[in-house]
């Protein structure tokens, strides 16, 4: 039995036994290589789940739909390791309760799918070498190296060119599981810190503020990248922030559910004198 069939039947039994009220997974998309999210509420609907190497989206963002989890019932969800990282970060930031999530985990390596063992959040909690060692896709890695090799002036020009394309549609914000604020800072207009019209300065402000807000919180799932209609390689900037945080604080976001947010917590042993 392939992994798709295994997870279809598992999802069906989760639903028919009433253990979960909903399973979020993938269904067929508009073209042969695209998948679209499928929300199954019955065992029969679960038979329409598709699971193959094209299922690359991070579905965890759907868990934050307003009101979805307020009844205390459980939801099943298909997740890759980056999605599991997102879940851990969301739990650490009190946006999810661990006992409301049933994980149907899978990994894609060289186009091959493998099922991940464990179903509860606790099974994936703690330092997970598998998750930590997970490399970024080679193409992304190459892009990062190409950017690193640039001089600061060239790099600034690169981002200026990229951000000049931004049309402020906020698709990146919508796709990102970490952008869960009820009101985004960009929507604050008293005072209007970030200019909403899409000119270079406002575009820069928006994208840089978002990168700062994701420092130490990004699971590197690439949802922002895929969502961007004008193809700004947003994950590159987030990957760089992630590396800075890793090097400065030995902090790997999404490793466990009890990680303290790296930029909001402080140690009393900090050598900096401004900390009492």
């Amino acid at each position: 039995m392939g992994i798709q069939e295994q997870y279809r039947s598992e999802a069906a039994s989760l639903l028919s036994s009433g253990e979960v009220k909903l399973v979020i997974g993938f269904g067929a998309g508009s073209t042969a290589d695209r998948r679209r999210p499928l929300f199954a509420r019955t065992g029969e609907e679960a038979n329409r789940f598709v699971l193959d190497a094209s299922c690359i989206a991070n579905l965890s963002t759907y868990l934050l739909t307003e009101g979805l989890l307020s009844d205390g019932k459980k939801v099943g969800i298909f997740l890759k390791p980056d999605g599991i990282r997102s879940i851990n970060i969301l739990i650490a930031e009190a946006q999810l309760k661990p006992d409301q999530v049933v994980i149907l985990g899978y990994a894609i390596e060289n186009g091959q799918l493998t099922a991940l063992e464990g179903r509860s959040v606790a099974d994936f909690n703690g330092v997970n070498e598998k998750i930590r060692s997970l490399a970024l896709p080679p193409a992304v890695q190459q892009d990062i190296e190409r950017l690193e090799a640039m001089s600061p002036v060239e790099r600034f020009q690169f981002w200026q060119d990229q951000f000049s394309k931004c049309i402020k549609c906020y698709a990146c914000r919508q796709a990102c599981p970490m952008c869960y604020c009820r009101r985004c800072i960009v929507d604050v207009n008293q005072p209007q810190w970030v200019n909403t019209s899409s000119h270079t300065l406002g575009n820069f402000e928006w994208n840089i503020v978002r990168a700062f807000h994701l420092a130490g919180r990004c699971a590197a799932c690439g949802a922002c990248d895929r969502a961007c209609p004008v193809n700004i390689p947003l994950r590159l900037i987030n990957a760089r922030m992630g590396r800075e945080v890793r090097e400065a604080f030995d902090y790997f976001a999404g490793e466990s559910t009890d990680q303290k947010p790296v930029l909001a917590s402080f140690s009393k042993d900090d050598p900096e004198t401004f900390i009492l």
Partner: protein
Amino acid sequence: MAKIGVFVCHCGENIASMVDTGNLVRSLSDHPGVEVCNEYKYFCSDPGQETVKRAIREHNLTGVVVAACSPRMHEQTFRKACAEAGLNPYMLELANIREQCSWVHSNKEQATGKAIEITRSLVEKVKRNNELKPISVPVTRRALVIGGGIAGIQAALDIASAGREVVLVEREPSIGGHMSQLSETFPTLDCSQCILTPRMVEAIQHPNIRVLTYSEVEEVVGYIGNFTVKVRNKARYVDIDKCTGCGDCIQKCPQKKIPSEFECGLGNRSAIYTPFAQAVPNKPVIDRNRCTYFKNGKCKICQKTCQIEHCIDFDMQDTYEEIEVGAIVVATGFQIQDTSVYGEYGYGKYKDVITGLQFERLASASGPTAGKILRPSDGKEPETVVFIQCAGSRDPSKGVKYCSKICCMYTAKHAMLYAHKHHHGNSQIFYMDIRAAGKGYDEFTRRAIEEDGAGYVRGRVSKVFQENGKLIVRGVDTLLGKPVEVAADMVVLATAMVPQPDAKEFAKRIGIGYDEYGFFNEAHLKLRPVETATAGIYLCGACQSPKDIPDTVAQASASAAKVLGLFSREQLEREPVVAAVTESTCAGCWGCVMACPYNAIEKQDIKDRNGKVIKQVASVNPGLCQGCGTCVTFCRSNSIDLAGFTEKQIFAEVMAL
């Protein structure tokens, strides 16, 4: 409509010499919303303040900007002036064109331009100021004093005598501290015990003082006026309420060869012991690590000897209690540096190389030799004693960088005591400088030299070694430029004063700052010497820096005055610069809860009309909030704002630049 008054101060020449104040006044006069704009030589003077008040009344001003010095200097002055003229004091802003402009620039034209921008941005801010009211918090009028040395005793007595309750916590079995170990005290040579013990007795008998000995402060939570302190009362194994202090148990204890801490190892004590004869309370304690019963499960001779039932209780456990206090005085004192780092001085190797504190015990009438200065090795009277000053102090390489302040004086005193007890004795003092600043201090050291024959050799000692039963002290006399050797019978090291070994850990536990050594930090070295940066916590004595007894006592009374000032009212008025959360947009990520250094942010339930919790949001306790703004910068959804520094105000300020 905003009606803003702008008042440009010359500060004599401080501002006017580098800023063209006339130009500044002209530029600001045309600024939208500015109703009146004046300049004057000293706005902080009475006529200056009167000008501001008159302008507020005559022009019905809605806001005031004083372009002058730092708000640290005169914000309170002008707030008061505004209030007297009927304007809410928080409708005032100080534009700092002195420290941040005139003092730091040398180009008048550019400095003037900058002063205009600074003042203009504050005008834009003050237009958006809101009227604020000070926050009232209740004050628990009971003080906690941590440390029962002379500092803690003095502070406790001063507070208690003014009619306020005090809890005095001491971790040793008796109060008294280091002062109880001293023989005579400089510069008057009065007996330390004779002047200290009356204070100790007064403290324990005072109706307003509760003395908790053999107890430690485990945790401090809360804020100025409202602290909750967790104290651990360590198991003493003796019920001090039942014990009469007869001392029979001490006599009968089979463990008698334990080096006494109080005697600095020069005398012995038993396993059940009182640290010294005048201990307060004069009730014994069992040293669990040395007691035969606790080691072998057999003995209990003390319990059998004791004539009071259940007085000695081997099953006693540590107990904890929580105490509500409004202010805390930290008086945790010092330790002396471990001199064994100086291998060349032979401390620990030769019995007759001792520390200054050990010499105190030898010279003390209550000490192991009953006040006779005798060599620890053979009990003979030393004919020649060498004193080495700065044995640790002012030595960045091996010791400490600072001056321990008391050693010059006590070494002179030691030489004097030695001369008084051994009339033919010879004392030689190696010193770097003689630091004898203080009332009667220089006269005292002169007396040691001139009347009591102390020989002062300016120079350092390189080595102390034993030869033919003598301690050979090899050093240099830098005034003669010659190496010298003295054959001594005893060597006394003036060891450095260092913070308590757990000082840093303790400071973190109660939330105060400390310096690189572990001495606790005062809020301002000159102007706020007994306050810490944490409101409601005060310092006194050698936990802040090395100090002698007069300074310690003065500082203890100063901290008591601060505590009594705080206790003079039932309610405490606090700056209303506190953060507030916009509940509707708070995402409940609790980043602010973790980021807050004052634990001022709590989780609050938002309920629907049926009482069901719909969500949780952050909520700031205005009593705890110190207005630092850390939460504001952290909040991603911009759901926290700081009164007096709102986003709107800051934005307007920035945009005016």
